[in-house]
């Protein structure tokens, strides 16, 4: 038995090692600078919705090589349901026509070109619609199979990680919110560690046991070991129209301002 186990695991490792994966490094330098590295964990949280940034990240990540994008593959655990395909398609189209315009120096109105590029992008996007706790955990366990089957996936997104928290609580005992996030991250970490992928998840800002803000609680780490976060990104919507992201890494902390124009994030 032991020998079979040994073979099985090394098989996955071998596969992971051999597979040529499209890196997503430098794909969104405003936030990640030279990162994120495969194996990194990224957290996005905010009082309001995190969809605008998530959507922007996903679309940028899918941009084809021809247009200087990473053309990476993504798996999305859709537990929140608000990040819709229509939204992503609309955003992708905007981004594509902008890139085409920049690369050819004239506006591109050819919908055929855009649609074929869009199709290329969507082929690299895989979505899991999840509606209950059992499905959630089973699908996480099944991630190993998905990642083996689609070996070029380099980003795995959980939107949101905490969607089934209340469903899981029972009258006898309640798990603390922070421990709940840690527990889930440990499970995910255990599964993805043999695959070279980046994990990105969102959580609502209130989802924290302590009254302290999330960033004061746990530091970020350079190298992700279990449940250690490499990037923490907070989204702050401001009434006065200049929205912010606060980015924290293990050695840095900075702020970027943005507007939202036609669903697209415009960095200032």
């Amino acid at each position: 038995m032991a020998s079979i186990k040994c073979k099985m695991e090394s098989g996955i490792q071998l596969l992971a090692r051999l597979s040529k994966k499209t890196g997503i490094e430098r794909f969104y330098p405003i936030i990640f600078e030279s990162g994120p590295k495969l194996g990194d964990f990224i957290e996005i949280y905010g009082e309001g919705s995190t969809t605008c940034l998530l959507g922007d990240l996903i679309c940028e990540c899918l941009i084809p090589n021809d247009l200087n994008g990473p053309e990476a593959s993504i798996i999305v655990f859709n537990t929140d349901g608000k990040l819709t395909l229509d939204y992503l398609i609309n955003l992708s189209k905007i981004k594509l026509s902008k890139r085409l315009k920049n690369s050819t120096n004239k506006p591109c109105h050819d919908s055929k070109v855009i649609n074929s590029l869009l199709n290329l992008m969507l082929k690299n996007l895989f979505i899991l619609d999840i509606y209950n706790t059992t499905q959630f955990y089973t699908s996480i366990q099944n991630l190993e199979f998905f990642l083996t089957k689609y070996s070029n996936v380099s980003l795995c997104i959980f939107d949101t990680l905490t969607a089934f928290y209340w469903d899981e609580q029972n009258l006898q005992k309640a798990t603390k919110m922070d421990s709940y996030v840690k527990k889930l991250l440990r499970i995910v970490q255990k599964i993805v560690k043999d695959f070279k992928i980046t994990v990105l998840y969102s959580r609502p800002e209130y989802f924290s046991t302590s009254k302290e803000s999330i960033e004061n609680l746990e530091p970020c780490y350079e190298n992700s070991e279990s449940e250690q976060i490499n990037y923490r990104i907070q989204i702050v919507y401001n009434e006065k129209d200049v929205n912010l992201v606060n980015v924290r890494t293990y050695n840095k902390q900075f702020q970027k301002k943005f507007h939202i124009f036609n669903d697209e994030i415009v960095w200032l």
Partner: protein
Amino acid sequence: MNALERKEHVYLTESILKTLKQNRIITLFDFLQEEAEKLSTLTKLTLPQVLEIRQEIFKKHSAHLINGATLFINSLTCKKYIPTHITSLDEVLGGGIPVGLITEVCGLAGCGKSQLCMQLAINSVKESDDSVLYVDTKGDFSAVRIQKILDANGVSYKDMALIMLKIRVVHIWNMEDLITLLENIKNGILKIEKLSLIIVDSLPCLMLQHFGDENKIGLTFLNRVVNNSRYISKEFQTGFIYVNIQTRWIDQDVSEPEEIESSCTVKDITYNEKRNRCLGKYWQTIPALLLVIEKCSDYDIENNYENCVMIKVIVTRHTNPLLAENCTLKLNALGVT
């Protein structure tokens, strides 16, 4: 989380389940997480048999990975909106009440939430074969009002009957029943033909029953309601409206008088009325679309002969929470227009 049960696979006999339980393998997740070799040793099943059970569990319970391109093709033939047929509202909503997402209608008592919802119920079935389900949690639905609106709009008795047959109403008095109702729809036990819109008026009436509970069972129920609503709206291609309420609280602000005015040092105490959506933090992030309703200028109690109230609808989307668009609607004998 589902427990590991006999029905999952024929290999899982009572004695095997008992052994697993003794080793703290109780839920499906416990089983999936455990190393196959250990399970094999414990259960005396062969490794391929254990793997077979695993595969069966995945097949039954895991979500399916669907490719974006496939989803795109499927979505081309799907409807995206349930038009409200109120021109100015459809314009602000960009087409109508979104399909596959949760919409919240929110406002103070008596601001016209139920009136708008009844109008949406009428309008969504008026010019189609679709039907609407109105989940009434406080006896607010009035068929007499529906009939009066239709009558005032000159609808013939025959058409009136046809429209009213397509408006389905159910009374629900607690969260448990709401969950059961949604599960019945989800599992096909309760079939409503051509269901295009579900309106729950109102959610706080059920949730507030759990206010002040020692435990958080209300939130557990709410999570299940949300899960089932998401499933139904997506898989059955329906709009889903939840009515929420607002409460007010007063903030005392001491405002500095403008410097230009004079040099006097009197400080004005102004009261700031703040409004708050009910149902707590968990719920706040759930709706994709928020419609806040305000009654315009307060009516004059003794001289309101017109019997017409103007209501303002402020629409915000979760994708850009600060961008608010609004429209003003008229509420009178003809309904909401």
